[in-house]
């Protein structure tokens, strides 16, 4: 079964507005990462948050992690048309020999100019 699930599946906003995407997961994790995928391209890493961190910022991105609720959110402030993409969370399950990331199905964000 899937580890990470993003919601909403799709989100459409006006340029300048903030966009919030959520990710829920099922088992304990070491880290959670967010990736962006532009149409027809590969995934690009955005930010990593460790299980002992609660919030992290990078430019216009803000990520929170609530391990008690097994959830994370990605906030993009002052969105731009260039932010139009799919956004994926990826988790690595805690425990020895954790070698793989498990990706969710993604949130498709459309920013309307």
């Amino acid at each position, binding site marked *: 079964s899937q580890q990470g699930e993003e919601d909403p599946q799709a989100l459409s906003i006006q340029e300048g507005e903030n966009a919030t995407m959520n990710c829920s997961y099922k088992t304990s994790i070491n880290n959670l990462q967010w990736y962006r995928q532009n149409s027809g391209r*590969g*995934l*690009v890493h955005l930010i990593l948050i460790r299980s002992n961190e609660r919030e992290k910022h990078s430019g216009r991105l803000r990520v929170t992690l609530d391990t008690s609720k097994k959830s994370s959110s990605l906030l993009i402030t002052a969105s731009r048309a260039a932010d139009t993409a799919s956004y994926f969370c990826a988790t690595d399950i805690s425990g020895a020999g*954790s*070698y793989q*990331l498990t*990706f969710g199905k993604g949130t*498709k964000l459309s920013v309307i100019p």
Partner: protein
Amino acid sequence: DTAVSQTPKYLVTQMGNDKSIKCEQNLGHDTMYWYKQDSKKFLKIMFSYNNKELIINETVPNRFSPKSPDKAHLNLHINSLELGDSAVYFCASSQGRIAKNIQYFGAGTRLSVL
């Protein structure tokens, strides 16, 4: 100068054929991956190699065979292609085998089996 490059970008072929996808990274990483992304955008790990050693081998039909001649290259050979193999295949690389390391993705190979 592309960090992770895959060839070909598009691959259209008939059912039953055998095809290969190549991947090369110039980042000096020691770990490489193959992922399959289906039509619903679900990205699933298939294989991973660390220094030419297979470390992840998910439940994938044995028609799929990865080969890593050196740590900068990871190729994927698919025998007897089926309609259900149609998807986008992504190669990725990272430094170190543990999952917390950032992965760098290629642009993908869109495989269409007719």
